[in-house]
């Protein structure tokens, strides 16, 4: 009996420490496409029709956690920030009938929805913030997307250390969700640079990396193929799921 236990535990520890190469091979080898295969299934089962829970204003984190890539420090962004984003224009173009160049006052005039929601990071932590801004759906409607448009791609001011720009994308169904905002304010004050000023996407029904900060342009496209890594977003190109509702 004791010998059996000894053999079993030795085999288990040997197996665990010796299977590093096996784990690497399974993760990166032909099995890799199987690993990403559940994304579509999760999306069909969960979808994004549900409404994220709304919190009282008293629940907000006054020091909302800052994360993501570093705050942009290039000349263009610095110049825009110094003038309070007076010269900032959000470009909405691509497969649209009426391309837009919207100033911050024009975005505020497009409607203002205040929502206090929880931000769930893919890492596991959560923070609550009060966000304010027009619905993404309203802004997209102003540009009148063509019938061929299927996705909106968010181009951002931030870049990683190797110069790769941040970008994100949603399909038009997710973009039309009534809680998907172009946030201009956090906790009743205009977004500061560290939290994505002047405009960040806020989609509370998906994980935080979908809520792109420092948005400069929204491009409507028919396909995400051929765009950077083809994954539809900066983190998606690094193996994170495009559908981030799970």
């Amino acid at each position, binding site marked *: 009996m004791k010998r059996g236990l000894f053999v079993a535990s030795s085999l288990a520890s040997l197996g665990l420490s010796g299977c590093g190469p096996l784990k690497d091979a399974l993760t990166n080898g032909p099995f890799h496409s199987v690993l*990403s295969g559940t994304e579509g299934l999760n999306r069909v089962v969960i979808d994004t029709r549900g409404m994220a829970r709304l919190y009282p204003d008293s629940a907000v984190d006054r020091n909302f956690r800052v994360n993501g890539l570093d705050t942009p420090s290039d000349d263009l962004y610095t110049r825009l920030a110094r003038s309070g984003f007076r010269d900032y224009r959000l470009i909405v173009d691509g497969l649209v009938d009426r391309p837009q160049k919207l100033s911050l006052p024009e975005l505020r005039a497009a409607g203002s929805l205040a929502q206090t929601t929880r931000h769930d990071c893919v890492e596991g932590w959560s923070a609550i913030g009060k966000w304010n801004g027009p619905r993404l759906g309203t802004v997209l409607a102003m540009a009148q997307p063509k019938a061929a448009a299927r996705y909106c791609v968010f181009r951002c001011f931030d870049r990683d250390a190797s110069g790769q720009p941040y970008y994100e994308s949603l399909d038009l169904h997710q973009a039309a969700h009534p809680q998907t905002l172009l946030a201009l304010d956090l906790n009743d004050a205009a977004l500061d640079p560290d939290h994505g000023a002047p405009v960040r996407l806020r989609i509370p029904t998906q994980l935080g990396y979908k809520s792109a900060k420092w948005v400069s342009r929204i491009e409507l496209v028919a396909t995400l193929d051929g765009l950077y890594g083809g994954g539809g977003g900066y983190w998606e190109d690094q193996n994170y799921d495009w559908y981030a509702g799970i």
Partner: protein
Amino acid sequence: MTSSAERARAQPRAAAPGTLVYRHGVAERTTHWLWALALLVLFMSGLQIFNAAPYLDASDKSDPQRRVLAIRASTIDGQPVGVVTVFGHALRTTHLLGYTDDGMGFESARAFPGWLTLPGPQDLADGRRWHLLFAWVLVIAYGVYLIAAARRGTLREFVLRPSDLPKLWPMQLYYLRLRSEPPPHGTYNPMQKAAYTIVLFWFLPLLIVTGLALSPGVDASVPWLTVLLGGRQFARLWHFVLMVLLLGYFGTHLTLVVCTGCWNNMRSMITGWYRLKDHDGVGP
């Protein structure tokens, strides 16, 4: 097969030791091994995911004031150390937790060691993919098992009934060798029944449900679920606690499989055939 199912529906009775009986149908055996594999992958990839935010809060949003567990690296006398803090009590765990194997042959600030996580090196994206794929394997294997076991009557044999409760303590005494004979029982003894019932009808469903509650999409569709669990970070804490409980069950299960006739037990879960031992009964 029919006759054994019929026998299973009968009242428990003593059976001749040495008799070979067909205990587990092919669907039960297949799904048992399938979810054993799924639980192994979910355990290892779950630790990988935990490493991305190596702390657990008994709250909805993250709140250091309500931190129950944190695993981190620190520095003492210029040397990196690993520290596990449970309910405010700090334990030094260098080389095992907090400051440990990074999965690439070195040590670094990392909650769980690379030899225990999937993938080995820190890789949240692929850890999530392993976890989400095998979550489906677990759910499907669990569902198929329940249907198959219910149809064959196996479920009836191991579901704990009120009449089993008085037999639990005598069985414990027998395990502790403080009693020479186990209480009379059917196919499974009362402690086995208690363990299988708790694991199958409490631990596994709760693991699945607490995992689902972590998904912002599920939370938006079924908001009361996360509220019921005490919030999102609390759901993460429950998910982790259930993993620890299941790990405890797994250790016990493995020990008893090995100690109560390893080959006979393994054969019954591979071929279905089990040779009855002394005190083994047949039936519920």
